[in-house]
């Protein structure tokens, strides 16, 4: 390969770098639209469920009395409730976070199964006094009052 025409080298380099960056940007934009995992409230999931198998997150309150450990000792079933009496059953295999209890807020990462049960790979609960998953924090502004009526345990 021969050297580029000297006059244009800087220009060519700039153009190449720009092309690569724009390509990266476009690719990122395309991938983000498909791969970002959307956050659902229980009522949103009930009214407009995501495609079966698509990675999403579900945030709401753990319904008191719904928590049940299955016979293998590591799988739990519970329900997450939201506004308008919405209720989504969730199944999770693993070690639950320390602050995961009935009546508290939770964000479940996972996918909706064909049977309408949300299968969680991971649960995020309130970490400590200072750290609240952002989704729950947002919820406290909009929904704490309504949540409190339904569950009698509000979020801070």
């Amino acid at each position, binding site marked *: 390969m021969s*050297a580029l025409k000297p006059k244009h*080298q800087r220009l060519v380099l700039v153009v190449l*770098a720009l092309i690569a960056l724009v390509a990266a940007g476009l690719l990122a934009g395309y991938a*983000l639209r498909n791969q*970002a*995992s959307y956050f659902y409230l229980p009522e949103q999931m009930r009214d407009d469920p995501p495609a079966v198998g698509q*990675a999403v997150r579900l945030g709401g309150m753990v319904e008191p009395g719904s928590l049940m450990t299955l016979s293998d*000792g*590591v799988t739990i079933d519970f329900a997450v409730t939201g506004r308008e009496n919405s209720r989504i059953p969730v199944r999770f295999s693993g070690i639950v976070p320390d602050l995961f209890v009935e009546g508290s807020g939770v964000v479940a990462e996972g996918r909706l199964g064909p049977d309408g049960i949300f299968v969680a790979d991971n649960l995020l609960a309130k970490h400590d006094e*200072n750290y609240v998953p952002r989704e729950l924090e947002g919820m406290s502004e909009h929904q704490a009052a309504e949540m409190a009526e339904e569950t009698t345990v509000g979020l801070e």
Partner: protein
Amino acid sequence: MIAELGLAALWLAAALAFLQMVAGALALRTGPDGEIAQISRPSAVVQGTLALVSFLALLYVFAVTDLSVELVAANSHSMKPWIYKVSGAWGNHEGSMLLWVTVMALSGALIALVEKRLPERTMQATLAAQGFVALGFYAFLLLSSNPFARLEPAAAEGLGLNPLLQDIGLALHPPTLYLGYVGLSVAFSFAVGALITREVTPDFARVMRPWVLVAWVFLTLGITAGSYWAYYELGWGGWWFWDPVENASLMPWLAATALLHSVSVLASRDALRVWTIMLGVVAFSMSMVGTFLVRSGILTSVHAFAVDPERGTFILFLLAIYIGGALLLFALRASTIAEGKRFAVASREGALVVNNVMLSAILAIVLLGTLYPLLTEAFDVRVSVGPPYFNPVSAIFAIPMFAIMAVGPLLRWRRDRWGRIGKEVVLIGALLIAGLTAIGLLADIAFLPLLGLAFALTLGIASFLPLRGRRLLKTPLATWGMVIAHFGIAVALFGMASESAFSTERLAALQAGQDTTVGPWRVRLAAVEPQAGPNWTALAGRMVVRYEGDAPVEIAPMARSFWAPAQQTTESELVTRWNGQLYAVLGGEAQDGRWQIRLWWKPFVTFIWYGGGLIALGGVLSLIGRVVGDIKRRRVRRRVDERREDAEAFA
């Protein structure tokens, strides 16, 4: 008293930063011989000393747990182990920002003391820029996050430090990363200084290079240590979560890696002038963006301990001033910087340009993925972006980069022919194809890990090719540094690919005395017993674990309850062998008296961090090589000068 002393030192340091900025800027007009130019270097030195005094004062109030200081009361506790009392000084927002400005002021003092190679005008401009950047951070500390604020009346007891942070990791990880971030601020100041005086020369690159190297080494170590810390402390079994804060440390690293390579081109070949300056600005911008993301609490992250909109706004404001200002200056001046030397496509420079472009593309991808949730939130849509986005999309650019990394170092500077290194290219290609087919046939694994393993194998061998035909003892240290750092990338890549391809997991509920298996391990839960530590109580799951045919080992992962602040953590336990790690976590008690345990067998996972260590080692070797070379050159020059003076005296 000590707290007031610290605060006073901090105010004085801020005043000196202002003086340094003004003096440096005025010296640009009066010329480097004017009286005003004599001020900037001493004020940089005194500023560094004062910042250090202030930081030592903070360490002191934490060490003695002075509960009349608000920050101590909010973050410490008299019963905490001593080491965590001291490291707790930077385990909070105010303290970590003070650490940041201290390191920054000290490095400013260091350049002012030792750097004599640059034209004095550029030096003055650099010091002025450094003072300007420091001033913003002083303002931030003093106006919105005073670490020495008093509490009236003093608290009876402190609130304690988040137990997740009560770990040796905290003593090491943030200071290391900060040294990296701040090293980039020095590179930024040099870039701005050179832009102002338009002196973008190989000499400038040689002055900037050690700072970039230091920053890069510390960033590498900080990321490696942080990754390992998250791996064993969080108990989730993962080593990288694409958490916004992890990304915030990765982005400056990517920019610094690109800068490191382009500054080398500038230093040895006088090409890529404008690009190097641009990267200098971008690298520090990424540190600032990182600080903004971490400190403003705008994104969900376990690191976000200062959720305070005022602070977020302040950092955003600083970010806008520095980055906006630097980019404006860049836009105005870039076209007036003379073009550097040219080169052919098939040359070392050409390969380094490809490396730079690929790194920048990965940087763009990580940045977009990190900011995307913020963007959609503006439209009231909440998303999170995780591995399904980051892994494949960054791999699209990482793979060609690895390919270029294998052959680039074999090319000559300026102009080369592919034909000259034909044999090596064929060897590398053959290795890659052989690796892909062999691993693909032998193991049933996903595509990305397969690519990763094949490239790790190829790179591992290719990274040593540049040493071929050289006398090893005569090879410059800097070359060894490059070889080892590239080999480190291969090692880390091997670890990552193995972990994702071959990890096995077992989740089980066991009664005391029962067995389970994970991979080649047999694990028996012996008993679950209570334990007590200095500021916690715990349940420890005593387990006897045995690797195929080896002697059994006893481990005891715990679920700890801290009382100040009241919080629970899981303390995982690891058994390390040469070929991987067993990772054990104790969960809760199921109703029927069984205990949940979670086990992973992660083959070769440790190679990720060995690789990180090797990469940093390569950086250190290269740094030593450069600095020693520089000192030798100075000595020779001095001797030549002396001889000439002697000769003149004789005449």
